[in-house]
């Protein structure tokens, strides 16, 4: 039951600074969409706008319309918590909760939202850890601290934690940038597996990764420092990487600049 996301004319600000300008795109359910572009071009900001994580920072705000199955998530009567329950997020650096065990980390979202029954939690923990390809590695030490795992395992733990609450959409903000190639591969495999159930949007600096995993790719860019980022081109991944319509996109994916 993954959902369609539609952005139209989304601009976002940090105080007076305009970080992205008029981004419009439609993300179909059960697809993987990659957002690529140089540093500081606003792709993370756009990603954080989709589950209203943007506004956690002081002075941050959004203009434009962002709908999930035709409901605008920025309508004044929308509950932020409900939006985030629907749209989960995996961060660049793994952030397991340090006071919790592996098990507690996985079921944190369920437990903190009121699920109390032990059997339900146990099932959810096992299912999520299996989906995140982590079960075999941790099943014997579920009560050890989550922070004691390796970086790649921690990131998969965070993914397990995210999918345990069964969101409709999973946002990933450079989830592999701190990981070695083997862990990266594990997470890419995982994304293919999760595609059956979730809509996934991933920000990445790794163009091979974008080409490998995504169905559609959006290319963000800025003209110069201080300008807002714009969505330059958004199309099938196949097309972006073989035959982009925009000169800027071609320059970026072939490694030519300016």
């Amino acid at each position, binding site marked *: 039951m993954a959902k369609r996301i539609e952005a139209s004319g989304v601009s976002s600000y940090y105080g007076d600074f305009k970080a992205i300008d008029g981004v419009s795109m439609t993300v179909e359910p059960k697809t993987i969409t990659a957002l690529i572009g140089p540093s500081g071009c606003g792709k993370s900001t756009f990603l954080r706008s989709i589950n209203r994580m943007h506004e956690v920072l002081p002075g941050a705000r959004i203009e434009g319309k962002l709908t999930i199955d035709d409901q605008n998530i920025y309508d004044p009567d929308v509950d932020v918590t409900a939006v985030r329950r629907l749209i989960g997020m995996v961060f660049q650096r793994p*952030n397991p909760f340090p006071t919790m065990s592996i098990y507690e980390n996985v079921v944190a979202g369920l437990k903190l939202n009121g699920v109390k029954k032990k059997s339900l939690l146990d099932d959810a923990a096992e299912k999520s850890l299996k989906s995140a390809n982590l079960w075999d590695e941790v099943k014997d030490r579920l009560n050890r601290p989550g922070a004691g795992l390796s970086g790649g395992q921690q990131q998969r733990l965070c993914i397990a934690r*995210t999918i345990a609450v069964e969101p409709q959409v999973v946002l990933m903000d450079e989830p592999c940038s701190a990981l070695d190639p083997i862990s990266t591969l594990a997470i890419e495999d995982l994304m293919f597996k999760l595609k059956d159930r979730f809509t996934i949007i991933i920000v990445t600096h790794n163009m091979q990764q974008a080409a490998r995993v995504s169905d559609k790719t959006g290319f963000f860019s800025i003209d110069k420092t201080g300008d807002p980022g714009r969505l330059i081109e958004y199309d099938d991944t196949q097309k972006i990487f073989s035959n982009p319509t925009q000169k800027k996109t071609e320059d970026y994916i072939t490694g030519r600049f300016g």
Partner: protein
Amino acid sequence: MSLLDRETPGVVMTPDNIRTKKLPVVADLGIALGALVVAAAVVLGFGIGNWVLVIFLGAVFYLVGLNFAAGAVEGKRAARNRMWRAAIYAACVLAIIPLVSVVWTLVTKGAARLDGDFFGSSMNNIGARDPNGGAYHAILGTLEQVGLAALMAVPLGVLGAIYLVEYGKGRFALTVRFFVDVMTGIPSIVAGLFVLSFWVLIVSPWFNDGTPQFSGFAASLALTVLMLPTIVRSTEEMLRLVPGPLREGAYALGVPQWKTILRIVLPTALPGIVTGIMLSIARAAGETAPVLLVAGATAAINGDPFAGPQSSLAVFVYQQAGDASRYAPDRAWTAALTLVALVLILTIAAKLLARRNRLSK
């Protein structure tokens, strides 16, 4: 020749030789011994001081001698390293000396009256010639006053800090933070005077047929005023240390903000918060002036903190230390030892309870 070689000769080893000479341990000890002998000769020879000055001068001579010797053998950089290390160790020892001395004095002098009578009776009807008498009333007073003060100051302080870190934005939060800082500097006697004029003289007559009365609760109020800023500030610092991504991680799971604070942020910061709280409790337990002002100071046992004068351990120490009876100093020492032990036990218990590594056992 590289820039480093030219600008700082002797600091960088040559590319062909990365080994260096080391000052032997024997030489180190020799310098220490020599420094002491020279210091003793100077101090005692001129008759300008006693063994304390010998040790102090010896330490200074040792540092200078070590610097020269190491400079000659090992080079300038290594010598500086050695000297600073020695200086830091010396500072460490210097800092520990008063602590050890205090504990030693308390234990040796306080042991004399560590008996059942001391912990089981009060000073009621104890005259100057009576060797017995105890601090039961004072221990009771301290526990009740500090307990009540903690009951008021801890929730207020922690909630205030949560407001400042998680919710407070703009002018109001700035004002609150400013006044908390100002409150930190309030002398305890001023807190005592405030409670005396406000609570004891104005409010307490309402509950006591128009007569003002001292009470342990008034002392708790004064202690609360003293504890509050410490708790707010230390908790605030600890909450700020909790990484933002942890909060965002919880938000991303659809956890509401208040629950994120309660279940993620507070547990992560708990050990530090508890340390701050224990520091403020220890300080409050040792306060004398405000308790003397607003709780009165009775020699009798009064278990009700809301009515009638109460004593406290700190007040008891103050009174006994100034008392003319030849038995009073022993009582003062034992009370001081009791106070320190009480705070120590509380602190250790709190630390054990708040230990974060319960997972890694």
